[in-house]
């Protein structure tokens, strides 16, 4: 008896809701793509960001709130490359929204539009939390964001053809602004070229490649595996042979390993926002990189 009532309710709600969406409902898995979609879509998109910058993007659960938001999404903007493998497929499956299933126009994976680095030579869980397709933390290189922006703007225009011109205009404006900003960051970042660094988690591959930093070692023995004191001591020995300027960690990670090594190796611990919202300064994509460069320059002094 209850079910019949539910079905009636369902039909009624669908009738009310269906014609009402004038804006695209976008479900962004991580803050950087949420921010990018807002840059490109303006008031034509309503963005829900599933995680915040202080969450470890590898370990998210298929929470009720995520299922509810994916249910109403017109577009899911994800990183892909297995970053969300633990929760996004389940969320999409439970949400009953075929528009945003992988392979549909409503499913966008940023990693498909950039060249992934660090494709593992050996696929084995003994190597830690490895991603078969390559390192998924692509957002730490602004040139990747430019590439994703091109594809995302096209996708938004496809999904919402009525506003296609607007998306194109906004994309042009963003692209101009972004290219100028990249040139500025590269100029500002010149002193960072060749600076040796340690990283807590292998989260900055793209940033390091972009700015020409030199990664000496990672504090995690294997990606995603908490460092032990024994392993940190090995890293310390490496640093004593091959000095590093600073140790980088993302805002979402605990500070103990970097503090440990920073104190003993007398180097600067540098917390990078990693994505939009990672610290008070990183309010949007531009300030994310402004702040990242500023913090790196400070650490390199």
């Amino acid at each position, binding site marked *: 008896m209850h*079910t019949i009532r539910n079905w009636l309710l369902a039909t009624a709600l669908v009738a009310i809701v269906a014609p009402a969406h004038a804006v695209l409902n976008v479900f962004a898995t991580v803050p950087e793509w949420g921010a990018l979609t807002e840059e490109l879509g303006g008031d034509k998109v309503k963005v829900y960001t599933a995680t915040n910058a202080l969450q470890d993007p590898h370990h998210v*659960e298929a929470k*009720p709130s995520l299922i509810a938001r994916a249910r*109403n999404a017109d577009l899911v903007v994800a990183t892909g490359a297995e970053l969300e493998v633990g929760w996004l497929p389940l969320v999409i499956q439970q949400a009953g929204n075929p528009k945003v299933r992988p392979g549909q126009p409503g499913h966008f994976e940023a990693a498909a539009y950039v060249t992934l680095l660090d494709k593992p030579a050996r696929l084995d869980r003994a190597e830690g939390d490895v991603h078969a397709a390559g390192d998924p933390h692509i957002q730490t290189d602004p040139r990747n964001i430019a590439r994703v922006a091109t594809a995302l703007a096209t996708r938004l225009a496809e999904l919402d053809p009525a506003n296609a011109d607007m998306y194109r205009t906004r994309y042009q404006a963003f692209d101009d602004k972004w290219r100028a900003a990249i040139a500025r960051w590269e100029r500002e970042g010149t002193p960072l070229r060749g600076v040796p660094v340690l990283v807590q988690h292998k989260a900055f591959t793209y940033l390091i490649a972009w700015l020409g930093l030199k990664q000496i070692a990672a504090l995690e023995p294997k990606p995603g595996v908490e460092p032990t004191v024994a392993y940190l001591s090995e890293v310390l020995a490496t640093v004593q042979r091959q000095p590093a300027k600073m140790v980088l960690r993302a805002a979402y990670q605990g500070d103990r390993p970097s503090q440990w090594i920073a104190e003993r190796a007398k180097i600067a611990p540098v917390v990078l926002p990693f994505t939009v919202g990672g610290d008070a300064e990183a309010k949007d994509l531009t300030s994310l990189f402004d702040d990242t460069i500023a913090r790196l320059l400070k650490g390199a002094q």
Partner: protein
Amino acid sequence: MSRSFWATALLASLLVTPSIALAATDAELAEIRDQIKQMKESYETRIRALEDRLKAAEAAAPAPAAAPAPAAAATPASTPYSASMLAAFNPGIAVVLQGNYQYLKQDPAQYAFNNIQLGEETSPGRRGFGLGESEINFSASVDHLFAGSLTVSLAPDNSVSVEEAYGLVTALPYGIVPKFGRFFSGVGYMNEQHQHAWDFQDAPLAYQAFFGNQFTQDGLQIKWVAPTDILLEFGAEIGNGDAFPGSPRNSNGAGAWSGFVHAGGDVGASSSWRAGVSYLETKAVDRVGRLPDTAGNITQTSFGGKTRTTIADFVWKYAPDGNATRTNFKLQGEYFWQRASGDLTYDSDGALGLTQTDAYSANQSGWYLQGIWQFVPMWRVGFRYDRLNQGTPDYGANAAFLATDPFSPQRSTLMFDWTPSEFSRVRIQYAQNKERPGFTDNEFFLQYILTLGAHGAHKF
């Protein structure tokens, strides 16, 4: 119409081969230009990719000596994911390996509650070293309409059973998700979780007493997710009701119906919750159970009739800033009410030569509340309190044989586990289980859970 279409198609396919020069129309020229443009774009992407890789290789190069770029750098940008051709269409395969050591003060063969008929499979397990249940799961999209999942369970006694084998319709819009086959019912909170995902090795007493550990449907489920910002999920199921508290009935009709509503959402960035109410009705014929008699011996009984179960459940999870990797806390509880009415046969296997059937009705309840705290990365501690309220069942004439003194079984469990990665867990657990008057069990478990293969889903 169709002939001209085929002609155009043939012409178009010939034009793709550049060696064949044909008188080209404007449209065809445009097509060629388009193709050249596409090729150009593709090469540009590749060159850009190579440049990026070269840069990366330079940055990563340990020595200043000019090392040649690795040959692997030729991977084109346009195909970032390339699964091996053989593996491409294989389903995701995951295997769960479990084993334990159990110290049980009381003989597990004597495990029974006054007034509550435990199902055949409900037991604290064996004493000493033992293999746990091994599990193999296959899952994949079937096609553009369906997805499928099979979970085979290999019991330590070398028996194989189909734990779950279901199809899902993935193509329906408006939040409608039908599921069919054999699946863990969506009633309650823990019922849908596989045993290796539980926070304690064994099921709460309420699940043991009222669901025989876990209720499985062979049938159909339809869920509907409402278009709201907080989760509102409605579900209904119909099935054969073969599983406890039902039993196989040799009937064309359905033996189990259920309905449930779940609501859930977030409070700030740090808390998430889900709460639900479920109802399940099952029919049974000659369902084998066990009850202690007046002399304290465990006797076999059988039940025929209807069982109605209502469950209220909630779970609340807290992690600072939502980052559960470091520290988190989880509070979870469920309350069961179960009404049963029908006939009870005492000594149904005739072991005592006292076989007798009479009317039976009971109104019972049970609940548990548990908290799990991850105090540093990888380490968790948990406590669970269980209780059953057996009420005063009406046994009719059978009351003369059965131990009917009112007693509420209760259990306190302490758990401590280590999870070095997402794929492994080692746990110790201690429980004090007050089963019956004067019958208290002290249980100590040491358990491992290993998962290999496909990455599991992080279920809430």
